[in-house]
């Protein structure tokens, strides 16, 4: 909501039902129940309330009706947002106007690349294990890279089953899968088309800056302590 919207929508401080009693629940101090005096229907003044309500709605109508007729400068002076419709309407006209997604928006998956362009995934099976929707299918094969045992022969994600929780990204030990594309799942005509393959996710991938294959800098300042109570 823009600042210009708020001034007449605020409930007056004195309005609202009269609180007769406040009871604090045993569940906690923040849980309270109020007993309020509401006007009986025959006491309530419908005519005045109806006129007041009509005043509010018609004020909004008049503003949204007449604002587009004002010049761009006059609108800017009144603090109206710049939209295609030229009034204070908050509707985003989707294909013409688009809101930018937040930075941490979880979009379609992508598979990251190593420096040599190969897939970073080592087929450790962490992500299909953690996936609550069981939408990730990985079939591993032997890798020919030095120091890396496996790589995915098949890496598929069924976007229709995916609940976009991001746990696969959390689980990945080597920054191989990300959901930071900012692209949401596109509509498909065939259910099969909603399955993302290794190739399609690699096509969106970029090279990761993280090191891989145990060649990175050590983060330990002391020697690892052996566990004391082995069962």
């Amino acid at each position, binding site marked *: 909501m823009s600042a210009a919207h708020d001034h007449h929508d605020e409930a007056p401080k004195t309005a609202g039902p009269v609180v007769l009693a406040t009871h604090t629940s045993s569940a906690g101090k923040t849980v309270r129940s109020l007993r309020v005096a509401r006007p009986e229907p025959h006491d309530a003044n419908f005519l005045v309330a109806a006129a007041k309500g009509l005043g509010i709605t018609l004020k909004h109508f008049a503003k949204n009706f007449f604002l587009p007729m004002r010049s761009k400068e006059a609108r800017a002076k009144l603090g109206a947002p710049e939209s295609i419709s030229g009034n204070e309407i908050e*509707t985003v006209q989707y294909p013409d106007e688009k809101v930018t997604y937040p930075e941490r928006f979880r979009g379609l998956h992508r598979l990251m690349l190593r420096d040599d362009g190969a897939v970073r995934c080592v087929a450790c099976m962490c992500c299909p294990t953690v996936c609550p929707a069981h939408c990730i299918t990985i079939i591993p094969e032997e890798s020919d890279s030095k120091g890396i045992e496996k790589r995915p022969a098949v890496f598929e994600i069924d976007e229709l089953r995916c609940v976009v929780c991001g746990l696969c990204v959390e689980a990945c030990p080597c920054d191989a899968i990300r959901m930071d594309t900012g692209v949401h799942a596109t509509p498909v005509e065939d259910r099969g088309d909603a399955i993302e393959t290794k190739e399609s996710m690699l096509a969106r991938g970029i090279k990761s800056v993280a090191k891989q294959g145990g060649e990175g800098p050590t983060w330990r300042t002391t020697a690892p302590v052996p566990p004391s109570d082995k069962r």
Partner: protein
Amino acid sequence: MLASISIWDILDWGGTKWLFLVLALVMPLASLLTWAERRQSAMMQDRLGPNRANIGPIKLKGILHFVADALKMIFKEDFVPANVHKGLFTLAPLLALAPVLIAFCIIPFGPTIYPHVLAHGIATHVDPLALAQNPAAPDFIDSIRLQIFSIDYGLIFYFAVLTLANYGGTIAGWASYNKWALLGGLRSSSQMMSYEVAMGLSLMPIFLAFGTLEPGALVDMQGSNPVNWGLLSWSALPGGALFTIGAFLLFFTAAIAETKRAPFDIPEGEPEIIGYFVEYSGMRWGIFFLAEFIEVVFISAVVATVFFGGWQVPFLDVDGFRFGGELTQVTDIMGHVHNVTVGGSILPLPHLAVVLFQFGAFGLKVVLLCWFQLAVRWTLPRFRADQLMKLGWKLLLPLALANIMITALVKLIFMGA
């Protein structure tokens, strides 16, 4: 016999006027209201509403949505559930639509047109004195009265006919073989019965003021001075405007209830029972929907006619805008007495301009009242069924009765019997 029928006779024939009124004015306005309602409600709620329907680059702010809606409803599957009473199921939408269209017969939707004055050249004026003295003069014959029926019981006719529209809802509810539809139909009946009484009675003060039930005569008597219009017609009497404004509020409330739209949409009751047309789809449902909007237009037309001077434009007489002037009584050759305003400062206008002004004024009044009805519909929350009955029987009816009594008493005391 056939040879004696002139083009003016055909134009003045009720069927022609009805076709023009319904096809050229009412149906387009009602269809536009389906779009206007969504767009207006959106603007009242800081939304945008339907604005994208287009034919190529022609967008018109989304007005074409009503075309899209109509096409959609026509091409939808015409589904009839298995156990419905087929005949009544088919009949019900027509029963809902037809009475409203018939009721339009009583509405004077424009002034009387004198074609021969127009034929003299479009700049010719109508002399009000000459018109009053001899309405059968060659200049004024073949006149086209823009009202289909001028019957003395005009508004009673409207009450009677619009009651029939209720059968549409009730029969739809019964024929649908559906509990919820039946409930909706019953609610529709009870609501109609409750509010029809208050609606009829609330108009009585206006009848007492003008002494006629004929809408055309009502408009003629209200004249071009807004002070004499129905809403203020008693204002010369002490506290008189109170009665007529009260009558207006009562009638408008009851009339909105008659249209079965929120805040009185108990028969429909979207959150509870969906209503008497729950089994209808496609254009059959569309007809119910359209009938509702035509009722909105009709109520606006009645309110404009009775309370807001019908097609009268403020200070526009038959010969042009007149300010001041004196009321004189003229006896025509038939012996009827007419009230004619003469003198005063006048801005003469040709007959065609006067007709267009007055015709446009009626349209404007109707559109504004429709707009107001939509605003009410999108502002007020809906009543519960018991609140609805309470409002109708315990508030509107007593108030309407009291209004009649007091108005009659005031008339008796200040104007004599």
